[in-house]
């Protein structure tokens, strides 16, 4: 197909169907058309974002998610629909320039590639579409094929591999597989679930920075996590275990809840990860902590739109703090925040290993 390709009529995408070899030309032409109508455009790119999904429905979801990110992390976005190569093999592509509705004529590129090719060749489909010298973030939509060559190949050309473990087919089991695969990855690894836990972790950590809990961080006795996304409960528990040096003593499934006992430097900690219904990642986390004056508790809950942290300590007035969940509107999955992280996240990697150990029980 030439650069006179039809606009907006293929596959339901509001993109222009183009021959794979003509993508750059088509984007350049669209940019000039925009500029002819509305003045100079600033083509902004801070990264290459490759989104890998298995079918057209997944591609549409992925595109909708990354469109919200554009203004925050303008990137060359390549949505790769890696369809099963049964029957005739081929590559079809669509492309468009997206203009932001605020700012000084800022625009970025979106490319959709539907590839029915041998998975070994997916990397060859993606490589020509990347902008030079910008980091490559690969977001795998759904469950990555951990043991498959396509996973290794695409991961090998990425600086950062991002998954959303809440979207895994079998979240706990796939989380354990992810932890195993992580050890062989050269790319940094992220999980959007981990990103969505950030405000929870900040609120759970903060009370241990001052009195009266400052000296009690190694005396957590009981942890309960009510998790909407099961892997979030596992990763949060893994975070406590790795940061506080807990060793898994024993664990079992009780119904759909994990019950674990950890040996800590100052005794033991019982952990319960229960499933919960809600619209977020977690609905509630409870900690019980021994202090010099007796048992104290820390609770974080998630009413709509914000988080509430409540600290009850012996002989002190209960404190209740409410903080915002910023970025929730523009980046509900946490993918945008992932694009701002460059190096390896060692704290996550350690938490993932502990979470996987629990998930395997």
């Amino acid at each position, binding site marked *: 197909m030439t650069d006179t390709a039809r606009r907006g009529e293929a596959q339901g995408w509001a993109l222009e169907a183009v021959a794979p070899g003509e993508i750059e030309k088509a984007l350049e032409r669209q940019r000039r058309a925009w500029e002819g109508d509305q003045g100079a455009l600033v083509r902004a790119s801070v990264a290459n974002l490759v989104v890998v999904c298995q079918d057209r429905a997944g591609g549409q979801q992925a595109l909708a998610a990354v469109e919200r990110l554009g203004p925050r992390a303008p990137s060359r976005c390549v949505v790769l629909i890696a369809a099963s190569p049964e029957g005739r093999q081929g590559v079809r592509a669509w492309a468009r320039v997206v203009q932001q509705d605020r700012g*000084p004529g*800022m625009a970025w590129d979106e490319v959709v590639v539907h590839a029915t090719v041998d998975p070994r060749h997916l990397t060859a489909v993606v490589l020509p579409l990347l902008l030079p010298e910008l980091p490559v973030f690969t977001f795998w939509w759904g469950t990555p094929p951990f043991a498959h060559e396509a996973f290794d190949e695409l991961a090998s050309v990425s600086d950062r591999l991002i998954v959303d473990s809440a979207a895994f087919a079998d979240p706990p089991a796939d989380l354990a597989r992810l932890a195993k695969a992580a050890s062989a990855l050269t790319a940094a690894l992220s999980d959007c679930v981990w990103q969505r836990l950030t405000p929870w972790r900040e609120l759970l950590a903060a009370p241990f920075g001052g009195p009266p809990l400052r000296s009690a*961080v190694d005396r957590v006795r009981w942890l309960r996590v009510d998790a909407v996304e099961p892997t979030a409960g596992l990763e949060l528990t893994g975070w406590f275990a790795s940061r506080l040096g807990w060793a898994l003593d024993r664990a079992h499934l009780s119904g759909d809840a994990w019950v674990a006992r950890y040996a800590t430097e100052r005794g033991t900690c019982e952990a319960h990860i229960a499933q919960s219904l809600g619209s977020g990642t977690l609905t509630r986390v409870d900690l019980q902590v021994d202090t010099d004056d007796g048992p104290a508790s820390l609770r974080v809950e998630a009413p709509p739109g914000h988080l509430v942290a409540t600290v009850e300590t012996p002989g002190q007035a209960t404190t209740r703090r409410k903080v915002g969940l910023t970025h929730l509107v523009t980046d509900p999955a946490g993918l945008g925040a992932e694009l701002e992280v460059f190096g390896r996240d*060692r704290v996550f990697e350690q938490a993932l290993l502990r979470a996987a150990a629990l998930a395997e029980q």
Partner: protein
Amino acid sequence: MTPGDGNPLLVGERVRATPPPTAMVVFGGSGDLAHRKIVPALYNLELHRLLPQNFAMVGSSRTEFTDEEYRAHMRKAVEEFSRTQPIQKQVWESFASRLHYIAGSGGDPDTYARVGDLLDRFDDEHGTDGNRLFYLSLIPRLFPDAIRGIGKSGIGGRGWDRGWSRVVVEKPFGHDLASARELQALVTEVFPERDVFRIDHYLGKESVQNIIAFRFANGIFEPVWNHRYVDHVQVTVAESLGIEHRGNFYETAGAVRDIIQNHALQVLALVAMEPPATFEPEDVRNEKAKVLKAVRRIEGEAVDRAVVRGQYGEGWVNGEQVAAYRDEPNVATGSTVETYLAVELLVDNWRWAGTPFYLRTGKRLPKRATEVVVQFKAAPHLPFGEAAQDGLEPNALVLRIQPDEGITMKIGAKVPGPSMEVRSVNMDFSYGTSFADDLPDAYERLLLDVMVGDPTLFPRWDSVEEAWHVVQPILDRWAEAPPPDLPNYAAGEWGPKAADELIARHRPGRRWRRP
């Protein structure tokens, strides 16, 4: 993990370490700055989970308020001035429950006793751990009372051993060199220098900090960042606004004290300083102080040649007719206070010898713009022929500080076509397009820095003193020489004609960049 060595849960890529427990006192707590900047900044820090868990604040002023009235007053302020809108009701209510108020006079010892009692209560009820941040959001003549009050009451300062105690002093730090030294003596009688945070909000702006990042994270510019390649440097701090009901203040300040002595010279220091060995606060502050010390003093009649002062007459700005400075409220009919200043400075060191730095600032200029222009020398030889290079100017690097934060590089490029014609084009980096998140307000960054005890972005006394050394001879000359005919520029113009002559006086063709 070693429990007891800090908080192991606050380690890692994404979890942002919050400052230690803090009790904050804002003297001038019902005033304009608290209203527009301080409390909205604190609210946004809380919204973004950056305030310490153990935090409480008390505002103190003469105005009578109950705690509830103060909270309602501040809620309106946040609703009007917060950079995030609309405000989140639950977050505000949780934050406001830690806001308190004490009415009292700065000269009354009882005020400080009551503040001290409340701070003790904060330690018990909010776990603020004896850490105390005193913010002097006051007009300068009230600084001495507040500092003495803190010292005499023993609620902070030297000798305070229940935690840290720090004081934030708003600009201007002194009215002239002598009064700055007096203030310094008074402040350091109560607080050691390490606990004194002289706030200049310009230094908290992301785009000002980006000057440091740009210079010291990009190796390609350092070799040309000197007198061999740079023709001159311009620092412009332009305002389209007038004095905005601040006639009483401005009549005693003028552009020199309001902008040049602090903002403009601090920006000059960041542009001209040598690379610090580390980004440790004292390394950065040492380099800034050294370069300010190297700025040649202009004295006596030389002031008449190297400085242009101006005052706006009536005119049009942004499509509206505006009054002359002398017709503004609380301004003397025959006032000779400068609303505009342009000055040529030389930095006498190895790097910058002979390269002029032109600083200008003004009120009622055509637009609001703060920027630094590094104007490079022309290429030594252009082979294209005179007609082919008509539109070509020497390279320039523009560091845009506000409002459109970013960097522009002016380069020569071939005009498409069969002939070799070249002209200047701009290559733009805009913060708004590469980092499209809302930039935090400068006060948010600076308040956090005070709480964690990082003074990097706060001018140290030697920098402040050196800056006064630069401007004091100008003020002295003006005190004895007759002023020019004022007003000498119309509101809505880029200042007096004499400023254009100033920049071109050593090299015809030099001109101010039009922002």
